[in-house]
């Protein structure tokens, strides 16, 4: 769903299109799932830097800008620039909203199990999962390593030059430790039969209801439809 929403967001032109899309595909499910607050916070956090630069760059430096809104010294903000910026922001909003929704509602283990049920090799599925889960462990390890090296006099609060000296004592154990950990994890996995060819027995898998399937297919179909619609020139009113 995240994929198709993204695709649709890119295709739907103008302001109204993406806004409508966001409302339907992102906000409604978020409200139903009661995660609207988290969704907004996370999505905002992720896209704020991009959003700000998109806004500023287009507002002031849009090439086709004619109608001047206001001036800041030598540079001028244009209406066309603002319009374009808003359109782009709407698209970005739809895309990041969709991705954030996906991330917040899908526990990694569900994703992996679902992929496996559809025939993806467990090894591939788990590598995907492992790479997601490595991040918090890596962060925690990096924090301990930083503390240990600081306790040996590594200066992390001084000048930039001094702090650059700390790269190897900090990065070294993070990498080496991660490698050791991967070795240990691999042994544990193999000792529990992970390398056996063939499918595994699954205890459970995420449920998939009729309405969910319908919603998915509708969205997927919408993509080629929209593409052809734009090609033919319809739906101009959507922007």
């Amino acid at each position, binding site marked *: 769903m995240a994929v198709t929403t993204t695709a649709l967001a890119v295709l739907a032109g103008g302001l109204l299109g993406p806004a409508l899309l966001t409302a339907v595909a992102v906000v409604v499910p978020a409200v139903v799932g009661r995660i609207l607050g988290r969704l907004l916070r996370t999505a905002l956090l992720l896209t704020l830097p991009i959003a700000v630069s998109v806004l500023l760059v287009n507002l002031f430096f849009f090439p086709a800008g004619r109608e001047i809104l206001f001036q800041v010294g030598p540079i001028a903000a244009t209406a066309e620039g603002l319009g374009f910026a808003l359109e782009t922001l709407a698209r970005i909003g739809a895309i990041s909203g969709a991705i954030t929704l996906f991330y917040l509602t899908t526990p990694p283990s569900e994703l992996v199990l679902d992929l496996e049920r559809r025939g993806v090799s467990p090894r591939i599925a788990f590598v995907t999962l492992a790479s997601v889960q490595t991040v918090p462990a890596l962060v925690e390890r990096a924090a301990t390593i930083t503390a240990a090296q600081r306790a040996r006099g590594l200066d992390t609060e001084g000048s930039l030059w001094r702090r650059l000296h700390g790269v190897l004592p900090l990065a070294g154990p993070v990498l080496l430790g991660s490698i050791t950990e991967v070795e240990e994890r691999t042994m544990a996995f193999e*000792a529990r039969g992970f390398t056996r060819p063939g499918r595994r027995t699954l*205890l459970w898998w995420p449920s998939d209801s009729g309405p969910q399937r319908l919603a998915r297919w509708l969205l997927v179909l919408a993509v080629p439809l929209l593409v052809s619609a734009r090609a033919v020139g319809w739906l101009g009113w959507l922007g």
Partner: protein
Amino acid sequence: MLALESVTYRYAGAPRPSLHDVSLELGEGEVVGLVGASEAGKTTLCLIASGLAPRTVGGTLTGRVLLDGEDTAPLAMDELAGRVGIAFASPTTQLSGVAATVYEEVGFGPMNLGVARPELIARIEEALAALRIEPLADRDPAQLSGGQQQLVAIAGLLALHPAHLVLDEPTAQLDPAGTAMVAEALAGLAAGGASILVAEQKTDLLAGICSRVVALDGGRVVLDGIAAEILADPRLTKLGVAPPAAVRLRRAVADANLPAAALARLEHALAAPR
């Protein structure tokens, strides 16, 4: 019966072998303790007993490893997984990391082996019961204490229905509560007839559960016999292994030339349950 027959093993790229001509038997229902100084070869022996060496770990092995008389050399790791289970010292790296609950974590092994679903569920519940961790079944394994995680790891091994369990210093990273938890669990398994090979520095723990103790030094077996005898053997200290507290105390007392009456009272106190 798990047997190592004249095994010599060298890690890939190592200048010297880590094990020399090691022969060892682990029978059904036997609990064997493995002791030795650091780097004496305990971990290597555990890896070989489980099949991880030379398969996953690499290296060259001469000699034979036999399961019920059958040479394991042609068997792949996944074929051995169901026959010998191995647990390590680190509670966290053994967890699969892909299970949301302890229930699923314990099932990881048999799931991999393609065990049919009804059997899978039966095995999980049996393993949880054997280690008395049913109350933890719905918990997130990552949120448990080290000791609890080790119990989950061992339950995960039991669910494979292995003929033998190999444990490489399972309490090394645990606090006293965790160590007690694991020691009690192992005692329970031993009483139930499990075949266990457990490497440990904590000889007090081994004294409580092992029938036999094997001592390694420089990659060779130097002592192999009845637990109580080996743990009281004066040669153990020379090998760099700390004897159980009671043995140490008796030795210190013997060196101190105390009067007979005092010795008798001491023995009486040591024999009393605590």
